[in-house]
């Protein structure tokens, strides 16, 4: 028995934890931009953590349920309503057949993850139901959710306990000024010492060009490059390199102007230098940044990055334990 989509906000896509393993063919991992929130939502409704749910950016959808279910909304503070009555986020909620789940105005964050008991059961492509619209993979026939769609559900585990919440201390949203930790990378030497310092000193802000492929930042001082001889096959701009692989989280700065952090639907390679990479532990936070959010990049070393990743794993373990 499916969920009927009455409205879909600006962009609601089916996401899970993605399809790793095809990036060398140009197909990104994809999946939820905020993986912690997606996992938490699934746990609350008794699903495996990699079950498919919905990712809504800024505006929630309106969904009619044709069977009883448990739902949970994690990530952004996008207050859910069941038949008009406001409900808490990060909490397992009971929905009856015929009821409508809708949302109030966004209060904080950018992306809400909506999990439903049983998970969304659209056909997987390359091992995932995650929507990669550019490649027409996953989702509903390779696209975002639209009004009029009927989303099939899998069989619920029956283990969800409505009323259960993720403890406050396990929830994550960026602060008023977001802090993103960056590990300087292979092309760090292309920047002048002055530019290296300025990149971390300046407060940037999220530009309107921010989506699943990448987040652009602006407002910091332009970065200068160390003079060099143009390498074979590299473009003439000082920010160009001989084409190379782009890691998830890599920070490219075309012409030294506006840093772009590649995210889950990243392109896999190209000809811009990357000054470094946002560490994996902070990638979820990027998915929760609204346009114009002041952002500070913080320089870290590998040891710190690995410790942060470990801390992140501990957090997920704590959520599993709390939900039981």
């Amino acid at each position, binding site marked *: 028995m499916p969920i009927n989509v009455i409205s879909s906000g*600006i*962009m609601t896509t089916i996401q899970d934890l993605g399809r790793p393993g095809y990036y060398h063919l140009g197909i990104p991992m994809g999946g939820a931009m905020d993986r912690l929130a997606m996992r938490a939502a699934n746990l609350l409704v008794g699903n495996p953590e990699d079950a498919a749910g919905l990712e809504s*950016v*800024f*505006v929630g959808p309106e969904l009619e349920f044709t069977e009883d279910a448990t739902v949970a909304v994690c990530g952004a503070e996008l207050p859910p309503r069941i038949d008009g009555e406001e409900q808490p986020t990060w909490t397992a909620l009971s929905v009856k057949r015929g009821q409508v789940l809708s949302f109030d*105005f*966004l*209060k904080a964050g*950018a992306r809400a993850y909506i999990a439903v008991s049983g998970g969304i059961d659209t056909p997987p492509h390359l091992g995932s139901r995650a929507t990669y619209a550019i490649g027409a993979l996953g989702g509903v026939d390779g696209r975002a959710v639209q009004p009029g769609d009927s989303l099939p559900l899998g069989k619920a585990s029956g283990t969800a306990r409505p009323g259960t919440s993720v403890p406050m201390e396990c929830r994550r949203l960026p602060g008023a000024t977001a802090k993103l930790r960056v590990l300087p990378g292979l092309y760090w030497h292309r920047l002048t010492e002055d530019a290296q310092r300025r990149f971390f000193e300046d407060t940037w802000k999220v530009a*309107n*060009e*921010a*989506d699943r492929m990448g987040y652009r930042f602006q407002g910091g001082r332009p970065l200068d490059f160390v003079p060099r001889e143009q390498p074979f096959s590299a473009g003439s701009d000082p920010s160009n390199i001989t084409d190379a692989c782009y890691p998830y989280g890599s920070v490219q700065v075309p012409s030294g102007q506006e840093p772009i952090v590649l995210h889950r639907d990243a392109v896999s390679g190209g000809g811009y230098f990357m000054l470094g990479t946002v560490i994996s532990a902070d990638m979820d936070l990027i998915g929760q940044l*609204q*346009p*114009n959010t002041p952002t500070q990049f913080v320089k870290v070393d590998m040891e710190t990055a690995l410790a942060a990743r470990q801390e992140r794993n501990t957090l997920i373990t704590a959520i599993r334990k709390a939900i039981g």
Partner: protein
Amino acid sequence: MAKHEIKSPIPGTFFRKPSPDEPPFKERGDKVAKGDTIALVEVMKTFHEIKADVEGTIVSFPVEDGEPVTAGLTIAELD
């Protein structure tokens, strides 16, 4: 009639004109019908139309053209 507030459902950049060289969609004192476009909010490389959800007369635009807005912020007041 009580004042009615039109809010932006999304965060982004607020624009009162369809494009930089065109006049604003609406001016103060203009009458609007339900469904009329009042402004645009740009986010994620796209422009979203903000429409009037009631009819009335525009009293004020609390936000300047080109300014950032957050979700739920009032962008026009109707009488």
